[in-house]
């Protein structure tokens, strides 16, 4: 079988500007990564420290909305440590959100992703931002939703780790739905 480097498809010349140079057999990497910081932090930094360095915040642009109006919210997860960290979550989801303790505004029993651990990496000082909207509806059956009535609702978001609230990796905010 003929390989591409055995073909005459590419003209090589060391002298001619613009033409690729003759192949250098001597292998010399052009750059090194300083250290594999992601792996090192995974091996060296205890879980407790990693979680301690992370914080999560959920905010809405205002606190009052009309019934039927979409409620946008922003979830910010920040690594305040000066080195990268990898956090292990309970399932392939990094974070989850809730409205009044109903995960993803669904009143059905949680039918989420498989329970298998997954690692999410944060660079040093990295801030991950996620924008979501709650459309003011609760899922009540497989193909049915009901509109939230007037009143106060708590929108919460937490990192998908065991005991997120106790470890300060859960945040919530309250919004009021007013009549249309």
């Amino acid at each position, binding site marked *: *079988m*003929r*390989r*591409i480097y055995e*073909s005459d*498809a590419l003209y090589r010349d060391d002298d001619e500007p613009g033409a690729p140079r003759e192949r250098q057999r001597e292998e010399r990497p052009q750059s090194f990564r300083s250290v594999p910081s992601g792996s090192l932090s995974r091996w060296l930094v205890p879980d407790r420290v990693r979680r301690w360095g992370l914080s999560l915040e959920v905010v809405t642009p205002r606190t009052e909305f009309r019934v039927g109006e979409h409620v946008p919210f922003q979830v910010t997860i920040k690594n305040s440590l000066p080195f990268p960290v990898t956090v292990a979550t309970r*399932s*392939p*989801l*990094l974070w989850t959100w809730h409205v009044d303790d109903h995960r993803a505004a669904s009143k059905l029993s949680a039918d*989420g*992703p*498989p329970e298998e651990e*997954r690692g*999410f990496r944060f660079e040093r000082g990295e801030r*991950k931002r*996620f924008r*979501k*909207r709650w*459309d003011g*509806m609760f*899922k009540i059956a*497989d*193909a*049915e*939703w*009901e*509109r939230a009535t007037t009143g106060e609702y708590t929108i919460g978001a937490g990192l998908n780790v065991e005991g997120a609230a106790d470890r300060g990796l859960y945040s919530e905010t309250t919004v009021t739905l007013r009549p249309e």
Partner: protein
Amino acid sequence: MALLEVDDLTVQFYTEDGVVTAADELSFTVESGEKFGVVGESGAGKSVTALSLMRLIEEPGRITDGEIRFKGEDILSMSESEVRSIRGNEMAMIFQDAQTALNPVYTVGEQISEAVRHHLDYSEADARDRAVQLMDDVGIPEPDARYDDYPHQFSGGMQQRVVIATALSCDPDLLIADEPTTALDVTIEAKILDLIENLADEYDTAVQLITHDLGVIAEVCDRVMVMYAGKPVEKAPVDDLYYDPKHPYTVGLMSSIPRVGEQRDRLQTIPGTMPDLVELPSGCSFHPRCPFAEDACTRKEPPLVDHETGQAADGDTDQHVAACLEYTGDLVEGLDYQVDVDGADPNTGSATERGRDHGA
């Protein structure tokens, strides 16, 4: 028993933003020798569906539910080596972008003959003869001389032909063509479609043609499934769908086809964009863009039902089913659009359609 039966296929991707449900309880069948079209906008889940059939979904994606039976055997419960013996052999795929699908460091001839050697146990010389024959079949001039050329020495249209030749190399029973002509100009597109159609007839291959071009479907397919946001919204024999579309999304797609000689200043579009699959709207996924949406559409997700009886789709291939609350009796105002067919009797299949009105 159909050649391919897909039941409640659900494919999800786990991303940092959340769960992307790219295919949501998708069911369809493809009969032997049939040409089945899948149509929808970008992001509707067409390609993910095709890749699932070949079990080519990669991390972070996963087939979370459903069954895919090919010739009665469940592909999802097969071992990797069993799937490899089917993939490229009994079930082959023409990928969207030929340049990416072809390996740049192997000659095109080698890439075709590799499949033949692997699956059919041909000798080196016989595989070469077979590859040359296939290159000739798909319309590559001087195939013997071009066997040793590399992909970059071919034009886009010729590369696509090589991909088609590779897909056809083992006489597959099912050919999945994922937007085979998207990257090509219209003249080459017409030639490639003719080629697929002729070759499918010649080799009696079933074709699942994925495209966002309704014109292509009309020309090639027997049956069609319209997808929106990972779900099928309408399934019907191709004539029924074109002459009597039942879902507002299908009507919108048809209205947006530009026609020669039309007097409108602007092309008609479906307002808005496909929703983010991480965050699907409650109720009918199409309701934010639907001109006929009512309050019920925000609260109830319509099932796929027969438009005449309102009964759930039963898998009958001739059934015309649509996922709209109109057909379950939940809409108050109902759908209000008109389909004008300009030309001969629809039953002759020779008519051209013009002037559909989308909207009240």
